[in-house]
């Protein structure tokens, strides 16, 4: 089984979730209020009051086949809006 870790802006969350569902992932988990730094600069929570928000961390556990679909659906979003994605191995308990 595969584990996908996504870090994106909270603002793009609805579109990312749509893409995950479209790829047929069996589920996903979302943590908001994530801060950090990446190639596009620092992200803090200080603009939260404005609706701009910080980052979200999205985790998807899925079969390798589904990962292919996720890659296809997510890559364009990540390259347009920014954000990072990493894959690792995992097994159900």
């Amino acid at each position, binding site marked *: 089984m595969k584990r996908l870790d996504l870090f994106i*802006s909270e*603002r*793009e969350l609805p579109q990312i979730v749509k893409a995950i569902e479209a790829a047929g992932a069996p589920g996903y988990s979302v943590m908001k*209020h994530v801060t950090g730094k990446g190639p596009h*600069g620092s992200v*803090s*929570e*200080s*603009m*939260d*009051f*404005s*609706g*701009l928000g*910080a980052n979200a961390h999205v985790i998807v556990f899925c079969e390798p086949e589904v990962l292919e679909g996720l890659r296809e659906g997510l890559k*364009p*979003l990540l*390259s*347009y*809006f*920014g954000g990072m994605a990493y894959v690792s191995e995992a097994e159900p308990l």
Partner: protein
Amino acid sequence: MDTSLVLQNLLTPPVLFFFLGVLAVLLGSDLEIPAPLPKLFSLYLLLAIGFKGGLELQHSGISGPVLPTIAAAVAMSLLVPLYSFLVLRLKLDSFNAAAIAGTYGSISAVTFITAESFLETQHLHHDGFMVAALALMESPAIIVGLLLVKLAAPQKRPRQEAMRWGAVLHEALLNGSVYLLVGSLLIGFLSAANSPSSVEKMLPFTDKLFYGALSFFLLDMGIVAAQRVRDLKEAGSFLIGFSILMPLFNAGVGALLARGLGLDPGNALLFVVLCASASYIAVPAAMRMTVPEANPSFYISTALGLTFPFNIIVGIPLYMGLVNALIPSAG
């Protein structure tokens, strides 16, 4: 420049708490107002300012200078982005120029509120319909900003569908803060007409707490604005100059318009402040969605890191001086 007005503005709790926040960052204090507490104050201020504006609009009625003023306000929110864009294109690409232009066409509700509080300490009257003008200036600027991108940006953008007009209008008109402000205005308007006793029961919340909640929120705004100052260096002297000179220019235009509209000094100051302020609530959130090519630290740090503090601290009394010079007080 009337330095006594500046001082009178400076030594009030909202402005002093703003300074306290700025100083916390400069001195490296770990004072922090964690999320989502600033959002609570931000939602509260929008709700309260809308509700109060609705009440006053109900009492004053929609007559006299109301409609011309609102029309002029909307016109300014369309015009300002256009000429701002031309200036910004001198140094920036179309994406960043359009995003910043939209920001300056729109308004800052907190600057408006601080100006209202300033008027109250000056015992100057102002009207509820100015809140309607405030509410109606947010969306057009967002739309013009995005129109500019569409017209001036490189033809082929990777996710063109993100720019579907439906999505843009949706963002402009139904953005959470615009929606809450307009909704509260309507609720104030309807309640005042139909249920005066219920309005009475709202006032301790929407009226009495207002000034203290504004002060608390400005403490956070001071922290956030000061954190943005670092980004300003990256933005460079062109944008720094723009963040001060453009509001001054817009204030001048606004003051002349206010005089033309026959506004009294209180409403005139609010009109000028609407023209001179830039949005850091509704617009950045909209731009991030629809012009992701633009660098957020540019449009946020100019509007929030420089124009906002400038307006709060010296802009408001300065514009008051301007209004006093142009518009003779009725009294």
